[in-house]
């Protein structure tokens, strides 16, 4: 009897530890302008549910009727972002982050989990160029465009200046149309916050429509200031960098990990997708897509979605929180959006031509996986006008095994959607099924 009592207590304790936290809600309640925000739940042991990587083995992602998907490139080394040059050449950035520091025991576990969730392939740390000389959409030439980079991510071409955002600097290279390899060492335009701690290391990059300014996404140096407030200097913000001088200012702040910087073609406003904070429950805080307003503060770390205070941040800054604005469009929690592209330039069916595609890398701290797909969000007059639709799926198989994970997106010279898949080490091409 005494033992049975002990066992019951022990199993109750174990259940409380393992099965901790509220059950995840339907993500459809957390999309759009006004997401449902549940109460905060702080875990004793966060539910770490990472999709086991199994690879594609000849399979391809799924697309709805009217679209077709084909492999654009395979056998890559961690392709994470894409850029299409004016002549149709496609740049594929093979990259990976610097090793995470171990400032406390938790990081030993977190670094291990991150390794489990990603491809075992060592990142190329370079940019490859793919060219389709036959005009069939599938490349037949491949060259190493720029080699030996430092965790590169963002790429943008302005005139004959090609800019690459390494994790610690924006570097400018001279580019001549048709060039397949750059050997010039490049010139540093501007330092970006890199190491020694470099938690969110992907520096997204775009240029203003007139080409005078660059915009770089600089992610936070922690989940929620656990590396100290000083480590966040210049981070969790979008930098506006003067192309001529390299001088910068923080264009918008409080954006935990902004990626996919793009100008909306109709209104010429800057948009981005943002990875919000973890470990407040399976449904907090929803990641989002938003237009980025000059001078605006979006809350991180002190608050989220306006004035919802995060109790993990001390000292609080009520003066900043008072002015924190809510983002435009929630994508639901922990989907990890890393890619964004507007669809107006595509040759996809008309249904997909007036909105944005978002690449959702997928969750790691939610018992029911979320993300792991590319969604389409319709726009009207430069604003989101409806719920997101699944466009490219099949990255997950058997519920919780990952064939791949979508990251960066681009539209190629023929108007097809390209998807970098860092875990499947491929680039996928989605086009109209028939003309």
């Amino acid at each position: 009897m005494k033992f049975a009592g002990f066992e019951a207590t022990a199993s109750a304790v174990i259940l409380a530890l393992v099965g901790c936290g509220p059950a995840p809600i339907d993500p459809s309640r957390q999309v759009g302008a006004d997401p449902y925000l549940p109460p905060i739940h702080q875990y004793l042991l966060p539910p770490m549910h990472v999709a086991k990587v199994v690879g594609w083995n000849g399979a391809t992602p799924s697309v709805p009727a009217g679209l077709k998907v084909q492999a654009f490139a395979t056998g890559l080394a961690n392709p994470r972002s894409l850029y299409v040059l004016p002549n149709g050449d496609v740049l594929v950035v093979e990259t990976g982050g610097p090793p995470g520091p171990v400032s406390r025991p938790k990081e030993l576990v977190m670094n291990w989990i991150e390794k489990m969730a990603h491809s075992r392939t060592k990142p190329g740390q370079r940019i490859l160029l793919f060219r389709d000389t036959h005009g069939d959409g599938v490349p037949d030439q491949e060259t190493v465009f720029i080699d030996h980079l430092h965790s590169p991510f963002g790429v943008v071409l302005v005139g004959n200046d090609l800019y690459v955002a390494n994790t610690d600097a924006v570097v400018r290279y001279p580019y001549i149309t048709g060039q397949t390899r750059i050997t010039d060492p490049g010139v540093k335009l501007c330092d970006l916050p890199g190491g020694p701690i470099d938690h969110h290391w992907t520096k997204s990059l775009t240029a203003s429509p007139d080409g005078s300014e660059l915009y770089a996404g600089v992610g936070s140096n922690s989940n929620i200031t656990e590396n100290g407030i000083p480590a966040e200097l210049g981070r969790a913000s979008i930098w506006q960098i003067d192309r001529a001088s390299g001088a910068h200012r923080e264009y918008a702040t409080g954006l935990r990990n902004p990626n996919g910087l793009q100008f909306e073609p109709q209104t010429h406003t800057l948009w981005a997708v943002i990875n919000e904070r973890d470990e407040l429950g399976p449904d907090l805080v929803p990641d989002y897509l938003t237009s980025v307003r000059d001078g605006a503060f979006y809350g991180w770390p002190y608050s989220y979605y306006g004035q919802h205070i995060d109790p993990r941040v001390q000292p609080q800054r009520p003066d900043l929180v008072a002015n924190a604005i809510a983002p435009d469009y929630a994508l639901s929690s922990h989907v990890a959006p890393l890619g964004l592209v507007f669809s107006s330039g595509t040759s996809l069916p008309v249904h997909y031509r007036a909105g944005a595609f978002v690449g959702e890398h997928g969750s790691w701290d939610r018992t029911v996986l979320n993300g792991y797909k590319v969604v389409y969000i319709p726009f009207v007059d430069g604003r989101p006008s409806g719920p997101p639709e699944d466009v490219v799926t099949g990255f997950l198989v058997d519920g919780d095994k990952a064939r791949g994970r979508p990251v960066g997106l681009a539209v190629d010279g023929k108007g097809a959607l390209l998807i970098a898949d860092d875990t499947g080490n491929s680039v996928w091409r989605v086009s109209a099924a028939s003309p």
Partner: protein
Amino acid sequence: MLSADPRSVSLGGRPVHAMLVPIPIVCFVATLITDIVYWQTAAMLWADMSAWLLLVGLIVSLFAAPAGMIDFFGDPRIRKLRAAWIHGAGNVTALILSIFNCLIHTRDAYTSVVPSGLILSALVVLILLVTGWNGWALVYRHGVGVRQREQQ
């Protein structure tokens, strides 16, 4: 005083539990101190130190606790001592609280310490004061783990 050698787990003739137990005690007391400093300064360094101290304390406890339990359950004379029951039950409680405390310290930033972590750290130190008091009685009054003079 126990009349003959108590059958304590020993290494080179030294009692394992008594040798190891100061390490988790020091770690858990230091955790309270670094927790308090973090609470007052919000400088993450101190919370990080708490997390390491808790981990080291727990790892050494994995060896110290079984040694103590074997001593306790292996010798009926020890089990007859009231101080041994208080010492054992208290330390097991402190250990369980420290496991929870370790998990709470894996949270990020302020709530990894304030308030739950800090409260648990303080509770553990209070318990350790009681169990330590009784533990010293076991050794110095009842000779637990103390080797008797060699019989020729």
